[in-house]
């Protein structure tokens, strides 16, 4: 039940925030802050109860909630929490708070509706991280999309119409592919066992024919990679990240991208072990291409937000690389990279938003010498530029290096290719610093330095970066059991608890009703 609270608190606070606007703008903001803070506390409480070492993963969860919904089709309200979802929910609640702080001064019109949308989107994201019934998962997957579209379309910058349409169409197309494959999997389950099921544990036990598994894996892969994104499905990213208001950019880069990564880790990788070994090199190659392609494009940008957007694309390549490396080390690196990227990119978008508020532009050609104008902002930009280029001692380094260490044993050449991205990361990060903070001062007019609240939020993120960079154990031990089971999906732990009568069902769409040998 406590899991439903996690989802329902922001969802129910959403209309309240809208109504609350009648009294004052601040009521809406405080309602949003309150809801997310409650969520954060709740998640922390769950975390403190998590006895690490407890086996979790497929079929055995730290917390679980199961209610029947549409039994005829095998759909149930099934939520489950394990280390991976716990870490991501903590990140969601934290970055949600950051997003609201970042929009505090930026959003002045329709404040209530803005926060309503933010809360709905975050509720959807948390739902995605918790749902282990594929139908319910898809429901939340769609729930987070519409408020996100509204956030971009209503409060975005000049080119918001184009960007919001592009975002919606791309993600919706990905969702379609995903939906078709979810239905197919459930149908295959019906063919194999006689009853359809959308339940994760049931589907884990489904054995597929190789050809079928290949197509389904491809579909699941595309559906999630569009959200991640990785080339060639990424072209919505730069426009969307750039045109979205600051808060929405933080949520998009920090959280929505993570739902794609989560989907890959939760579904794509473990559901289709049959074709994993064939598919992994392709996915890893795509990851390495993403790293280099994003980095090259980040180097050619003149707009700050676009630069951060492309750097984000480059960082997501590491996630793709690690998720398919098939080693526990790489998977642990992926989790670190998810958290670290959320913090570093979120902070960079927040800084870009702060600069936009002061100079009404994010064009780096019109900036320069900001160290003398807004020293607090420039020093934070320096810090997060370092984080983004993977400076050791900060969380991004742990993520990237664990991924690379883990991937090297699987695909040495691809990993070496990906390592070149480290040099390019230095080029664009330092280029960004040079164009904005250093050099001669372009803006002669004085601008106020970062406000205490924004500076405090950035400092908090910086502190977390350092903490996780020097002591990543809290995250790594929480997710380790999950990643251990991901590497050996052959024997799901739940399978052992079932009686032998529940044999491994096999299914094939073309030769229906084949019983297992």
């Amino acid at each position, binding site marked *: 039940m406590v899991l439903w609270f996690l989802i329902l608190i922001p969802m129910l606070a959403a209309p309240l925030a809208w109504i609350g606007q009648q009294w004052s703008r601040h009521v809406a903001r405080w309602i949003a802050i309150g809801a997310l803070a409650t969520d954060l506390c709740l998640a922390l409480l769950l975390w403190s109860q998590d006895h690490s070492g407890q086996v979790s993963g497929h079929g055995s969860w730290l917390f679980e909630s199961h209610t029947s919904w549409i039994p005829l089709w095998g759909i149930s309200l099934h939520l489950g929490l394990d280390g991976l979802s716990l870490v991501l929910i903590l990140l969601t609640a934290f970055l949600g708070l950051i997003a609201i702080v970042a929009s505090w001064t930026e959003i002045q019109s329709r404040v209530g509706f803005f926060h309503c949308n933010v809360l709905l989107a975050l509720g959807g994201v948390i739902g995605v991280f918790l749902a282990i019934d594929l139908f319910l998962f898809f429901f939340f997957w769609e729930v987070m999309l519409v408020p996100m579209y509204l956030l971009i379309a209503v409060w975005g910058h000049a080119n918001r119409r184009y960007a919001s349409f592009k975002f919606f169409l791309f993600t919706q197309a990905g969702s379609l592919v995903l939906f078709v494959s979810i239905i197919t999997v459930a149908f295959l389950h019906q063919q194999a066992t006689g009853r359809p099921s959308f339940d994760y544990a049931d589907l884990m036990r489904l054995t597929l024919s190789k050809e079928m598994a290949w197509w389904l894996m491809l579909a699941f892969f595309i559906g999630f990679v569009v959200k991640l994104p990785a080339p060639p499905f990424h*072209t919505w990213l730069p426009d969307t990240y750039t045109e979205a208001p600051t808060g929405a950019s933080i949520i998009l880069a920090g959280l929505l991208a993570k739902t794609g990564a989560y989907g890959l880790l939760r579904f794509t990788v473990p559901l289709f072990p049959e074709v994993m070994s064939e598919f992994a090199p392709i996915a890893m190659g795509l990851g390495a291409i993403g790293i280099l392609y994003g980095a090259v494009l980040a*180097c050619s940008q003149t707009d700050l937000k676009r630069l951060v957007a492309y750097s984000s694309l480059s960082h997501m390549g590491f996630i793709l690389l690690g998720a398919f490396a098939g080693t526990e080390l790489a998977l642990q690196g992926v989790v670190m990279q998810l958290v670290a990227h959320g913090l570093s990119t979120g902070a960079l978008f927040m800084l870009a938003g702060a600069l936009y508020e002061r100079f009404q532009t994010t064009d780096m050609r019109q900036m320069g010498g900001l160290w003398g104008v807004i020293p607090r902002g420039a020093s934070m930009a320096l810090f997060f530029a370092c984080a983004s280029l993977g400076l050791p001692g900060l969380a991004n380094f742990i993520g990237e290096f664990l991924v690379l260490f883990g991937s*090297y044993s699987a695909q040495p050449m691809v990993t070496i290719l990906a390592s070149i991205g480290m040099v390019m990361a230095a080029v664009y990060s*330092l*280029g960004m610093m040079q164009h904005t903070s*250093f050099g001669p001062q372009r803006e002669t007019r004085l601008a106020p330095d970062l406000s205490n609240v924004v500076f405090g939020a950035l400092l908090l993120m910086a502190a977390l970066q350092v903490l996780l960079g020097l002591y990543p154990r809290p995250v790594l031990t929480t997710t380790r059991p999950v990643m251990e089971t991901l590497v050996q999906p052959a024997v799901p732990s739940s399978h052992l608890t079932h009686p032998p009568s529940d044999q491994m069902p096999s299914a094939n769409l073309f030769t229906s009703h084949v019983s297992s040998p």
Partner: protein
Amino acid sequence: MLKLLWLIPVLPLAGFLVLALCGGRLSRRQVAWVGCGSVGTAAVTTALVSVDFFQGFPDRAFYQQTLWNWIDTSGMTVGVSWYLDALSLLMVAVITGIGFLIHLYSVEYLSGDDGYSRFFAYMNLFVAAMLTLVLADNLLLLYLGWEGVGLCSYLLIGFWYREPEYGTAAQKAFIVTRIGDTAFAIGLFILFTQLHSLSIQQVQTLAAEAWPIGSTRAVIVAALLLIGAVGKSAQLPLQVWLPDAMAGPTPVSALIHAATMVTAGVYLIARMHQLVALAPLVQETVAVIGLLTLLLAACSALVQRDIKRVLAYSTMSQIGYMFLALGVGAWSAALFHFLTHSCFKALLFLAAGSVIHSLHHEQDIFRMGGLRRQLPVTFWTFLIGAAAMSGVPLITAGFYSKDWILWSVWSSPLSHHWIWFGALLGTLLTGLYSFRLVIRVFFGEAHTLASGEPGFAMRVPLVVLALFALTIGFLEVPHTLGHLSLFSPYLSHVLPTLEIRAGIDESSETLEQIAVTCSALLGIGLAAVLFLPRFNFIERCADMPAGHALATWWQNGWGFDRLYDRLIVRPWLHLTRDSGEILDHGSKLLVIGAESCHAWLSHTQTGHVRWYAATVAVGTLVLLGLFAL
């Protein structure tokens, strides 16, 4: 007392944190106290630790301290742990000792600058990172320090951030070294994948067991580590960043780009000597790179106009000597040269800084001259530094270290005689360019008026370093001159000692020494002949077209910058000139397709209700017909 080891890197780090978080609120005096104090206390702690260390030495050859487990997951266990042995203690002593002197010097040197607290914050962070590098027990922690010093170097080169050229130089330094760092990182991936460990000691033991001498894996890993070391230590072919790095304030050049950071590559190779020894091919490459760098850089140093660039090229050249020594297996000699070089090169930079300071940021040596009467302390200390660098026999430290290296090159089984002749030519060039600098700056007629000798805080480090530059060589006196050997037994607990090649007569050492001495003195003498104004030989040479072309070529560092510009920078800029992307055209095509379909279909949308009704009826009929069929 050994337990205090963790304090040594933590103290400067604490200094950095204090200055970074509340540097704006402190007065200059307080900033100076925090900045110098943190490094000073680190130096004192080092002294305390080393007293304790030497009590148990050599029975207890190392001391290990683990603070916490950094990464401990899925088969990778890496701790934040320190490893103190003879080699790292030497490095720590140099870093904290010379670091403190340079901090003290900066208190006065930068007293008029806006970014006072920022400067000391970066410097403290640098010292902390450098100490982490040398004290690290495992390669990942070493990499942390390695990247940390690179970052600080970047920040300090671009310290005067308003000048765009300085920013470019800073970026160049970081990116070029980052190329080396990436190779280093790939080396770590291979090591970990093969040996499942990153501990420096463990990895080398395992490697020695697993890989035979000269095996491909060992060669690849050693080569990758070498690329990392080459990048950091500004050796060929990644040397291009160091001359430009002189954009930073002079104390920075003294600390980072002369005494400590650029020798990190030397430290790395010495630290990984067992691994390097497994790859004789790589070790030979180290020697060749060292030799080439020392000669090329020495030629470039001969023709520079900027006092700091001369010193930068001389640093490259001297580190070339260290690489040469490492390459021929004279590990201790390389470290000894590191020790003396840190003293005399820091001294030279600080004295040059004093010159620059008193001439109001004039760096062109052709606008200097005749300063020996106006700046006597600076003159004498600079002279001592130059003498030590050229290896003036018996009285300077540089002589003892360089002689040791040359003797090792001559007698090592891994070396060839032609290498020795190259290195000998290097000593001649060293004398030549060192004293060219002395003569240009301190002799002849005055071009610019100096504002007088620097104050107390700048003079103390100069004098102390001058004393070191004279005396530190007596730690290891060759046995032909009295046999006082302290340094090599000390390091022999960590690094193997060099065996003399069969067929080399020990008595030839005297002859070899005479050759080295003559060569150095010849260089100095030539400098006097060539550059003293009354001879004026070199100007006539440079006026000739061939001489002029050669001088320009050398002045630009043998055209490496141009080469890299053509090969890498321009293609890269070409690649990134357009901010749009190709893949976006794909989705644009989709949009165009959708729009044309839309235009076509919208003809059916006439707005006439009856037309719609008719289409509905026809559609129904068609469907019914289909079903009926």
